[in-house]
Structures are given as structure tokens and as C-alpha cells.
């Protein structure tokens, strides 16, 4: 893995997208930038792979979309969390926390 960047675990992309949208609606590019920022440039996604994930989350009813105008005055599709999406985010955050704790234990060989 070049530049010491971590590869994305299967299934975590959904969590990252939901988290990225927690504060405000964003368009696709904005989400990819936000994920990079939040992970301090540690995590990168192959940028195109964002879109199947976005459409899947919309299909599941966790995201809603709206056409708006981007910062450079272009038409852009904005994604926002739905109520179900917020619930799902909370759920995934909890299960992720459990998982990472568990893996932490395993790696430290404790308790």
C-alpha cells in the first residue's frame, strides 16, 4: 500500500458516507473530500466506487437526493441523511465501536 494509506475494509464505506453527511447535505465530490479530511488523508476510496454506494444507500432509504447548485455555480446532486439514515448511522457506529474494541483486545492479547 503506497503512502502508508489504509485499504478500506469491506462494508465500511457505507459507514463513512453516512458519517460524512451527518452535519450537512453534500454532493458526491464533497463527500469524497470530507472522508479524506476526516481520516486525515489516511483513508482513500477509489473515487468512482463512491457512487454505487451512494445509489445503494438511497435505494435503502437512508439517503435522499436533491438537485442544487455547487460552490462553483454548477448543477450538482446533493445527498442528505434521512431519519432512517441517522438511525442506521448510530447503529453502525455502535457496532463498529464494538468490533474495533474486540479486535483491539485480540491484537493486544488481552484480557
Amino acid at each position, binding site marked *: 500500500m503506497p503512502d502508508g494509506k489504509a485499504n478500506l475494509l469491506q462494508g465500511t464505506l457505507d459507514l463513512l458516507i453516512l458519517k460524512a453527511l451527518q452535519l450537512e447535505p453534500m454532493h*458526491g465530490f464533497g463527500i469524497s473530500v470530507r472522508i479524506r479530511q476526516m481520516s486525515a488523508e489516511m483513508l482513500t476510496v477509489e473515487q468512482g466506487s463512491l457512487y454505487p454506494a451512494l445509489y445503494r444507500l438511497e435505494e435503502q432509504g437512508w439517503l435522499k437526493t436533491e438537485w442544487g447548485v455547487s460552490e462553483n455555480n454548477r448543477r450538482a446532486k446533493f445527498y442528505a441523511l434521512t431519519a432512517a439514515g441517522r438511525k442506521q448511522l448510530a447503529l453502525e457506529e455502535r457496532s463498529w465501536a464494538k468490533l474495533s474494541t474486540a479486535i483491539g483486545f485480540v491484537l493486544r492479547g488481552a484480557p
Partner: protein
Amino acid sequence: MTLFRRLHRLLRRHRVDEEMRAEMRAHVELESQRLQREGIGASQARARAEREFGNLAQWQQRAREQSGAAWLEHWQRDFQQAARLLVKAPLLSLVIVLSLAVGIGANAVIFSWLRGVVFRPIPGVSEASKLVLIEPRNDAGAYPGASWAEYRDLRAALPAVQDLIAFRMLPLDYGPPGHEERAFAQLVSGNYFSGLGVPPEIGRLLRENEAAVPGGMPVVVISHEFWVNRFAASPDVIGKEIQLNARTLTVVGVAPEGFRGTVIGLTFDLWIPATMSSVLLAGPSEFDQREARNYSLLARPAPGAEAPRLQADVTGAMATLARRFPASNVGVTADVLPFWKSPRGAGRFLFSGLAVLQVFMTLVLVVVCANAANLLLARAQSRRREVGVRLALGARPRHILRLFLAEALFLGFLAAVLGSLLAEWGTEALRAVPLPGAFPFRFETELSVAGLVLSGTLGVVCALAFGLAPAIRSARTDSHLALRAAKDNGGRTRGRGALVALENGLALLVLVIAALFMRSFLESRTDDPGFRVSGVLLGQYDLSGRKYDRAAGLALLSDLLGRLNAVPGIESAAVASRVPLDFHAMPSAGFTIDGAARSDGGKDRALAYAVTPGYLELMGIPLVAGSDFVPLTDSRRGPQVIVNEEFVRRYLATGTPVGRRIVVGPASYEVAGVARNALYETFGERPKPVMYFSYRDWYSPMGQIHVRTRAAESLASSDLRRTVQGVNPEIILYDVRTMTEHVEKNLFFRRIPARLFGILGPLVLVLAATGVYAVVAYSVARRTTEIGIRMALGATRGRVVRQIVSESLAPVWLGIVPAWLIAVVIMIHANHGVLVLSILLGVPALLLAVVGLAAWLPARRAAGVDPVVALRAE
């Protein structure tokens, strides 16, 4: 995501694709701008942005799959595979599609018809379902009709009614003297057409003031068909004078095509102001006679007027009339009825008959679905390996579900298309059914859009009904088990057993109903009606338009009958006001015995009609007591009546009936004789009390001439015509037919359902057998090994077959026993409490024999297998 959004997206698929591409391009663009801001050259930044994004087309394809836009493509693929099923299993598909198409088609035909009767009861009148009848009802519960005076009063007394129209039927003679033909007219109020909202085809329709003065306004509106047939659709017809009952009327307009008048099932040619009746009938004016209840009243409620309010208004208005005119109106109130419940015309008959048929058809369709489900379940069982392979190759259970549902929907779709074609054809066939006789009856039915929508919906619903169980069963397949086991040795059969039970139970019900109909139909052909049908010629005359009073009419009748009796080919002749087993209900009259009123003050009612002396003998109805009427011209004896045995049994059981007095209306009639019971209204009716009156005492200007002939009755028709012409050339004889033809007409309405049942009964039997055959065939195919072991252990072939058949018939028994009990209940209700053992025992026996055979055939084949071969097959 909801189905609606999905469909929406499907329909906008290309637009969604475009948006997706635009969105991704914008992403690449923004990324390249970001890189440029970091100091990378424009072309290099662009290339890097594109590289980092990856293959745009590929991501787009993935996104499309995730978004559900691939839905259509998947279904398309599944439907293609489903179409292949047709080729792979043509017989199975054919059985399912054909049986389903018949079921759907029959339902669509009946549903369209039923819907037409209820929602479009008056052809050519829009929103006819909003119109209601106001029908006076007497204390005997009968609807005698309204008098013209009542119509006038009600029109003024009902503010909740926007238009109140009145009409009555009048057959009359059209054409110049000597060339008359029978035509059917409605005498109507002046607001008839405006109230119905019917516009003229050409000319104008009737005006309010044209039906204001008795005897006024000799104008006539003709029907479109009459215009086309008699006037070659010439516009010159307006202003033309035509002869009706030897009076001259002026044609003012033509009614629009499709408008046939306002009695369900009947087609009228002419509409004449009701005030013309005194002229056309040459009798006393009926306008002030409150007893002359000849009219039907049809109302268009004012906007916002609810049915309960209208009924309350009508009840109040009738109560007022009863106080003001006690002689005619005491005990008479009125009901507000939807048009299809009209007590006149074929409406009520049609509705109840169609409702029964609809229930029957629905049952048939359920049997068909159960059968299809059975066949598909059996087939799904044999496709376990295929499903196992699909699952092993990565198909998800929901893909399997979709595949199986697609197959079912495909079959359902084909069946719906074929069913619609069958329905169209069936409706055309129904409309083309010719009706014998002079009555202008026609089937008013067309395949409505609603009927076609029903076909489509039934196709989908049935597909889901019979496709869901096999689909779910297959989707639950465990791929390891399915692939490992060469044959499925377990497998739940409970679901299929239940389907077999349902199918056979319903089949039994349907067959019993069909058998009952067939039996009553066949019986009525061999039944003794109580009179001699063959050798009688009938002809109708009507003196009501001529200048004959009662005395002149009686003299003419005596003269006519005397001359007819003298004709060599004629054995005897008589006249009756009605012919039994007619299309219409017989008139009845209320009476009291010896003037003693019933304890509750009401009156008993019996069928009543007028005959001439010699009528009973001509009909072959023997007198069991007393004697025939005195001659028509004999005025020495008082009024006479002859009653039948049933009348005696009910009302004159004590003492000798002959000589007792029966009071009807103002007159008292002496019982002259007692006649043997006969059939009067329908075949299969229970004995009805009847009063025969003499034309002498119960005069009517109309009559049916009965002639008993020595040779074939049709040969006498010219004799009859010549004799009538000889008495008075002005009298027109119409509707000349033999009694046999007349009775056939009565059978007509039974013949259509009988034919329908004759086709559907065997079909249902075949379906039941197919279902059982499929289940047994597939289950023995799975049990080859077991059968082989048994036979290797010494079981005889016969024993194996017996066991398979009896096991297979267990669910059949489970279905037909409760169904049989229901059939008994139905029979008790439908057949006056008489249980027909031949049907109750014969139908289950037939059903069991057929399904037993269907089980035996595959069982014998399975047992015929060599044990060694069977065991090696594992």
C-alpha cells in the same frame, strides 16, 4: 424504496442514466480543479483525476444495479427464461394457459354483463345508474304500476326530484290497413327525453306540452333502427305521416342510435305522447282513472338529494294520496328502486341469474388456480436440481423467487390475453343469440373496458395465487441438499394435499350446481306440464285499437270460435287471455271466499286469467268436479269461475267446492268446476292456485286464439288466418306459433346456463383429474426407490398400486366430504327441500372415479418398474 418510485425511475431510465453520468463527470472535473490548485498542470491534473476515479462506465453500471434501475433488465431476462418454459414444458403450459383463459374469459363476460345491468341499465342514456324507479306497492307486496293521475300528483309533490317521467308499453299495428305489422311503442310523458337527457339523432324529440291534453298531439318519435329499416335512414322522414292503430301520426324526430327505450331487455320502435292513448286505444280515457295503474315512473333525483330523503318524501306523498283517494290508494305506498331492480322487464331475472353465474365462475376460476398451483408445485419439485445449480452459482433466493414468479406471471399474462379474446368472442356470441317469438327482447351486453381490466387483473392475481407457493418453496431450496440428493426423497406434500383437497371440493360443488341446472333443464323437456303441448296452434289478436265494446267483442269471439270449429282441419278452438309457461309472470288477483275476509284483513291471491268455454278441454286439462263455463252469449247465469285442485286444497278444503262463491273486486263468482293442476309459470314450479274466469265475465279486448288441429299444427295456420280475416278483415293476427314453440321460448333462459354448464362441467372434471394426476405422477416419480425396495421385499404389484391410489385419494376425500355437505345445504335451498339422490351420490361417484383413474394410471406405471432398475437408478 417504494414500487412507485422504482417504476418512476424505470420509466425515466435514460434520464437517470444521463444525470448519473453528469454527476460523475462533475466529480472528475472538481477533482482536477483541486489538483490544479495544488499546482499540478491542467492536462496532468485531468489525467490523474480520471485515473483516480476509475472506469466511469463500470461505476455507472454498478450504481445502476444498486439503484434498482436494473430491475427491468432482470425481469426482462426472467421473462425470457419464462418464455423458454413454454417450449420446454409445452403440455404443462398449455393446460395452465388454456384452463386459466377459459376461467378468465367466462368471468369477464359475466362481469361485464352484470356491470352493464347495474351501472348502465338503460342503453343510450348516460348516468342511467343515477335514475331511480318510483314504484307504487300494494299491501300484497306487488308492484301494480302507477296511474297517470298519480304521476301528475307525485310530480307536484316531490321537490327532491329534478325530473319525473312516466312511460308504459303499448304494442300496436303499424302501416296502412291490410298491411299492418306489429310495432312496439312506449307511451311517454312530455318530459321523457329531456328528463333522460337523450338528444335527437335528427329532428326533435317530444315536448312537454305535447303530452298535456288528453287526445292531444299526434306526433311520434321513431327509433334509429326503425328509421334505418323502414325509411332507409332518409332525412325526409321528419314530417312524414305514419299509420298506427289506423290513426295518423306525424314523425317529428329520430331517437339516437343505441337508445331502445326504458324497459330492461326490450327494444322499442316508437315513442308517443301518453295523452294519445285515448285515441290509439279507442277506449275510455285512462287519465282520470286512478285504478288504471299502467305506468312506470322514473325519477332523476335533484343534485344532493339522498336516497333516504327521497324515500321519505315518496312515502309521505303516497300517504297523502291514500287519504285523498281511499278507493284507489288505501294500502298503497311506493318504493324507490334502482332501475335494475325494476319489477317489469328482464332486469331482476337477469341480475339474479347473472349473480349466480358470477359466483359459479369465480368458483371455477379458483379451481383452475388451485390446479395450476398444483402443476407448478409438482414441476418445481422436479426442478430442484436446476435451482440448486443456480444457487450454487451465486443466485440469491430472491432471484429464484423472481424467476418463478416471472414464469407464473408470463403464463397469467398469456391467459389474460387469450381470456380477453374468448370473452370478446363469447359476448359476441351472446348478443347474436336469436330469441324466438314476437317479443322485442335482446341481450344488452358488451365487453366493457372494466371487463378487460378485470381479465388483466385476474391474470396477474391468479398468477400470484398459483405462482407464489412454488416460488417460495423453490427459493427456500437448500442448494447442498438439492445437489447431493439425486432424487428428493422427503419433500413436504402437505401444501399439495391441501390444494388437491380444495380443488376437488370446489370441483364437487361446481359439478353439483351444474348437474342441478342440467337436470332441471332436461326434466323440463320431459316433464308433463299438465296440458297437451303438441297439436296446438296459437295466434294473438288485439281489439283495443278498434271500436269494439264488451258486447260487440263477445259477439265477435262467439262468431270467430264458431267458424273455426267448423273448419275441417280444426278439432276445436278457444281463446285465453294468457298462455301458460309464458315469458312473463301470470297476472294474479286478490280474492275472498264467500265474502269472508281473512282474519288480518288482507286478501289471498291466486293466478287469474280469462278463457272461453271449451278451453280446458282443448288444453287437455280435465275437470275433476263440476262443469265447464256456460256459452259466452248466455246471460242467464251469474258470473262463474273454475279453480284448480291446488286452489281447493288451500282455500276450499272444507265442503264441496262447486257452488261456493269467490269474491274478486266488486263481483262475486260461483265456482262452476274444479280443474286438474297444471304448470302455469315455469317448469319445476310447485302447484299454484289458479282461477279461470270466463271471457263472458272477465272481458279483455286481447286474446290468444288456441286451435287444436287434426294434422300437423303448422298446416292449420293459413286456415286460422283466413277464418279471422273472414270474420273481420280489420283484425290482425300476429305472433302465430305452435304451442311447442311457445314452450321452447320459456326454456330459452334455461338453455343458456345449461349450455354453459354443459361445457364447464366436464372442463372442471378434467381439471380435477389433471391436478390429481400431476401430483401422483410426480410423487411416484420421487418414490421410485421406495417402490423398488417394497417390491424387492415381496410386495405385489397390485398391492403397491392400491396403496399409492388410496394414499393419493386421501386429500381428495378431505376436500369432497365438506363440499358434499355444503352441496346438500345448497340443494335444500335451491330445490324446495327436495334432495336429488342421483346427483348427491352420482356426482361424487363420478368425481372419485375420474380422479381415481387419474391416480391409478401413474401408480400402475410406477409399479411396473423392475425393482433392480429402480434401485440402481439411485
